[in-house]
């Protein structure tokens, strides 16, 4: 017997097949010289065609310029690499994947800015097209750090191609999956086609050819290498599960000498795949050219007619592009977290900082300018009932010596509502574009319209009323307890102005501001409770944004006997004025008449975005509605939802704007910082530990299970289990052991045919225990002990390394 350090795997040997009894095929049947390199090349070409043509077609539809040959070469190289490594043994393949991963990671960190910019460039291009298509100017756009789109889109396309190849390769190599190929390539065309943009014919030809060849290979099955190295594998008919049954039923007189038949099956032919590609390409080319000549793309007017489904979803698509994912949830828009008095449906607010309106006015103080949009008069639990009274009447009639004018252009704000500064003369609101003056029943506003508001900032001559509508003092019974508790805890007392300040201070100390307070728990199938918005905020959640603070404050003020109401709208902080544009061509006198605390001022055009949408409370003091601001300032930093920026910062060891000790800024160069990477190492460590624990557990479980199997009550079963373990051990240690066909031969192998061991007796005993019943316990134990001794001796002839290996293996 030869003993190896490690158990040797049997070398593959070709087993001759008989064409008929006595006629042997002594070496593998061959048809063509099997060329692995050509085979890999052809398959890689096919693999590269799909992601390349899908992305190139998409980009061509939007007429994006980039370096196409570079992308093509990268895709082909990636496909070659991954197709090749897929043919390697699994452990080599895994090493290659790991090495590639680090290379990919490194290159991503170097090019992350380009990648980001390229991605955003494509998004912006699509959104620009969408803007044209939907005829709107209010589409978002993303900042591109590098403006050279040719370069950035090329980089992005290269990465996209490589990732696509990595994802597609296993499905191609193992299954030649048509489903995956189609899902990967065709749906991406939905976007340009929706906007009536067609891809270039060249990429269509490449894509269709690749998909059809994919279909042919999938249907034929000839795309995988056989496990054996021969070009033709063979199977004997009638030896499979159903074949055996079929043979037993219908071929009872089956003669092995005369009735055997075989089927030879070739794995794949690079030549056939290559020829198929040429045929598919030619057919598609001829067809596309033919269709183009008979029905050119431009004259296919059917594509400009919307289908009924498309017409139905057009608005939703437009909203989605305008407002993002928020447009899909909770059935109402979220504009800075507000939506005409709706409460509780917004779990978190993500500002896009896109311009909602542009205000042209003359600033007169550092104070925030409030623009009223919606007034809520009655709290209904999940919303505020809209106040149908005029914004500033009947308790006020606005007038004063100081008169101002503000022109507001609606860019992204809700056009259903006015945006009136305090104290606007509601009878003089005018649409500058249409020239129509506001009536009590309102007028239509379109995006881009300029609405002029004339207002009296001080309103010292406004008419003050004495009677208060009781609705402005109503607190629902459901909320009284919560509100009373708040009032007691906050120690509210004094004048209305003092109470407003006390509420604001108490909020600041005990109720942190957050844009992500979570949504209000509603009644569901599994939760029977439904929370009240105000009670939940005041007593349980204790955090929120302006809507929460304003709603609760309104009820608190009412509880304290101060008429109050809920208001939504926009604010123009002084920072927006500072960032605004001075309009030197506009006359100040057209926008401001009266004394200006700033003295000399100018007309300013300020951009107001969605982060400036706001909700507040207003209280009636001395017959005049005044702003009662109670929302505490925000300490939150905005999350970066740009993962590349986050990753880049991580690898950069900090923010790109950081300044080091010498005053130099941290540019886009990579400097690895162990502090920033510590979480990576910890994560990797946890993963490694988990894997190790898993294998330890599995190993222990197997060992325990095996040991238990031959320490049970039945001694005969124990002996059989132990003998089975010996055989398993020997099979792995010595492949020749598999040739032993009987217990006797196995024991002879084990003992090395030692004369001192009575093989015959022992093998008979083993057979008796294995197949007999009622075997005596002592007898079984005795045989088991003998087997232990024999096994120990047999095992002793193996090297320690082999035994160590087998200890873990079995």
């Amino acid at each position, binding site marked *: 017997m030869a003993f190896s350090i490690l158990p040797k795997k049997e070398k593959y040997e070709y087993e001759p097949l008989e064409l008929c009894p006595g006629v*042997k095929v002594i070496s593998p*049947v061959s048809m063509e010289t099997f060329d692995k390199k050509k085979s890999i090349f052809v398959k890689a070409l096919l693999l590269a065609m799909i992601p390349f043509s899908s992305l190139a077609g998409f980009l061509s539809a939007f007429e994006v310029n980039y370096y196409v040959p570079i992308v093509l070469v990268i895709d082909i190289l990636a496909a070659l690499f991954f197709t090749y490594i897929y043919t390697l043994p699994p452990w080599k393949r895994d090493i290659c994947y790991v090495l590639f991963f680090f290379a990919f990671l490194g290159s991503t960190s170097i090019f992350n800015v380009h990648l980001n910019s390229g991605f955003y460039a494509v998004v912006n291009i699509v959104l620009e097209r969408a803007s044209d298509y939907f005829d709107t100017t209010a589409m978002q756009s993303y900042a591109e750090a590098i403006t050279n789109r040719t370069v950035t889109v090329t980089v992005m396309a290269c990465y996209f191609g490589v990732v696509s190849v990595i994802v597609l390769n296993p499905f191609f190599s193992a299954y030649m999956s048509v489903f995956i190929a189609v899902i990967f390539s065709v749906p991406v065309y939905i976007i340009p*086609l929706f906007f009536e943009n*067609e891809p270039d014919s060249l990429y269509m030809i490449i894509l269709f050819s690749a998909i059809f060849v994919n279909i042919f290979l999938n249907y034929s099955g000839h795309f995988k290498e056989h496990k054996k190295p021969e070009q033709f594998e063979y199977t004997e008919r009638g030896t499979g599960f159903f074949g055996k049954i079929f043979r037993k039923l219908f071929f009872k007189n089956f003669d092995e000498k005369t009735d055997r038949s*075989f089927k030879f*099956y070739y794995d794949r032919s690079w030549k056939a795949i290559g020829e198929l590609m040429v045929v598919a390409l030619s057919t598609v080319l001829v067809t596309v050219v033919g*269709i183009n000549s008979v029905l050119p793309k431009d004259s296919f007017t059917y594509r400009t007619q919307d*289908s009924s489904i498309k017409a139905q979803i057009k608005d939703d698509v437009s909203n989605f592009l305008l407002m993002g994912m928020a447009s899909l949830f909770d059935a109402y828009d979220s504009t800075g977290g507000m939506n005409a008095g709706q409460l509780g449906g917004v779990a978190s607010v993500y500002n896009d900082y896109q311009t909602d309106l542009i205000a042209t006015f003359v600033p007169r103080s550092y104070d925030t300018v409030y623009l009223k949009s919606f007034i809520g008069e009655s709290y209904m639990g999940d919303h505020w009932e809209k106040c149908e009274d005029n914004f500033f009447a009947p308790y006020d009639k606005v007038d004063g010596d100081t008169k101002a004018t503000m022109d507001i252009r609606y860019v992204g704000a809700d056009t259903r509502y006015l945006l009136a500064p305090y104290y606007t003369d509601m009878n003089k609101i005018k649409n500058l574009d249409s020239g129509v003056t506001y009536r009590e029943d309102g007028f239509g506003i379109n995006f881009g319209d300029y609405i002029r508001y004339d207002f009296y900032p001080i309103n010292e001559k406004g008419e003050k009323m004495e009677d208060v509508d009781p609705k402005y003092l109503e607190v629902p019974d459901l909320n009284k307890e919560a509100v009373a508790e708040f009032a007691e805890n906050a120690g509210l007392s004094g004048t209305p102005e003092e109470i407003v300040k006390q509420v604001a201070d108490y909020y600041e100390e005990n109720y942190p501001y957050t844009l992500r307070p979570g949504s209000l728990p509603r009644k569901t199938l599994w939760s029977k409770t439904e929370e009240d918005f105000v009670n939940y905020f005041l007593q349980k959640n204790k955090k929120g944004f302006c809507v929460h603070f304003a709603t609760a404050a309104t009820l608190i003020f009412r509880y304290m006997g101060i008429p109050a109401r809920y208001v939504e709208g926009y604010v123009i902080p002084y920072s927006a004025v500072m960032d605004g544009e001075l309009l030197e061509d506009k006359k100040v006198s057209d926008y401001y008449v009266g004394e200006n605390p700033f003295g000399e001022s100018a007309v300013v055009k300020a951009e107001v975005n969605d982060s400036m949408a706001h909700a507040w409370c207003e209280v009636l003091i001395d017959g005049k509605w005044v702003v009662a601001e109670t929302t505490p300032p925000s300490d939150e930093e905005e999350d970066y939802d740009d993962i590349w920026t986050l990753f880049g910062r991580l690898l950069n060891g900090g923010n790109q704007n950081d300044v080091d000790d010498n005053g130099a800024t941290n540019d886009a160069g990579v400097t690895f910082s162990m502090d920033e990477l510590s979480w990576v190492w910890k994560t990797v460590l946890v993963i490694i530990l988990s894997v190790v624990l898993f294998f330890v557990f599995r190993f222990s479980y197997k060992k325990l299970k095996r040991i238990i199997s031959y320490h049970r009550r039945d001694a005969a079963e124990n002996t059989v289990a132990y003998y089975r373990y010996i055989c398993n051990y020997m099979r792995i240690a010595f492949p020749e052991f598999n040739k032993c066909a009987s217990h006797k031969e196995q024991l002879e192998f084990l003992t090395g045919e030692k004369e001192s061991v009575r093989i015959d007796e022992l093998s008979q005993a083993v057979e008796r225990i294995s197949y007999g019943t009622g075997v005596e316990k002592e007898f079984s134990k005795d045989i088991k002990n003998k087997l232990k001794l024999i096994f120990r001796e047999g095992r002793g002839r193996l090297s320690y390394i082999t035994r160590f290996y087998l200890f873990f293996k079995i």
Partner: protein
Amino acid sequence: MKKIGNIIKYLIVFVLNLLMFFFLHGYFNLVILILLILFPMVSFFAAYMVNRRVSFSFRGPRESMHIDDMFNLGVRIKNDTLFPIINAELTIETENTFLGYKGKETLNIPIHAHTEDEILFPLMSEHLGLLHIELKKIRITDWLGIMDFSKKLDDHTEISILPFSRVSVEPDLSVVNTGMTEMEESKKKGHDYSEVSEIREYQPGDKLQNIHWKLSAKKDELMVKDRESLSSSQILMLVELYNNRSVIIDRIISAAYGVAVYFLQNQIPFSLMWWSIAEQDMKSRSIDNTSDLYEWIMAVYYEVLYSDATMGCDMMRRLSLDGSRFLVICEAKSVTGSALFNYEGDVEGIVTE
């Protein structure tokens, strides 16, 4: 089942694209639709054309082979068309007509466009006999795996497998020599199994048993069968065409071949005889050279084997009324007599008593 699966998959792709076309009204989808309709037609046409134009032929050894000789059998495929086929099934039947062994193989092969390919089978036969290899049928499946086109083929090739090229048999001739005189006696008694070369008029001295009585009655004069003159020491060697599960016929023929070669080398005249079940007659051939020997083997290959180990010998005895002696090549210990040689333990050359 696979065909139905392929059709369903194709239909799913078609329907998905159709839905996309109805939704988007895209020119892109229109082109795909047309291609999806067109490609099956192209696929069917390609398969049909290849089926019509493809031809197959054998390329095999021109000479006879011996047992355990390696030889290559090539199946040539010629496709004149520009269409490749990735799924073609070629049915080949292989038969050793002498032993009655059959095999049927199906080869799944690609057929390349406008080219001639060859499938190579490196073969070796463990038994002698006549290998008849026939191309039965080609079935071509289109690219989409939906439609099959079949065509019957009738090309075949035959390869003779002779006994081992070197068979070493050294018979003990002393036994043979003793028996010759008795054989001569049996001839004198009229049992002469030499071949008839011609029929001529009676001449004084001709044996009475050679008179062709039927012809004589017709012609109204005595006519005799003129037999090939045999040397006085010519050996009659009967070969039992007996076969069993261990294919003993291989060794019997090989032994007979070996002895024949020995006799030829030592210029010992002999005839080979065998019992033909088909003709129900004892057949004989005088062997003067290796060509005669080769012809004898070819003739035997067309005979039917029997399962009675001593049938030939029994028939021989029945026909030879005076109990003449002859050399029989048979299974060991099946016939009593003096052993001339033993070949591989289970075949003997026995001189009958």
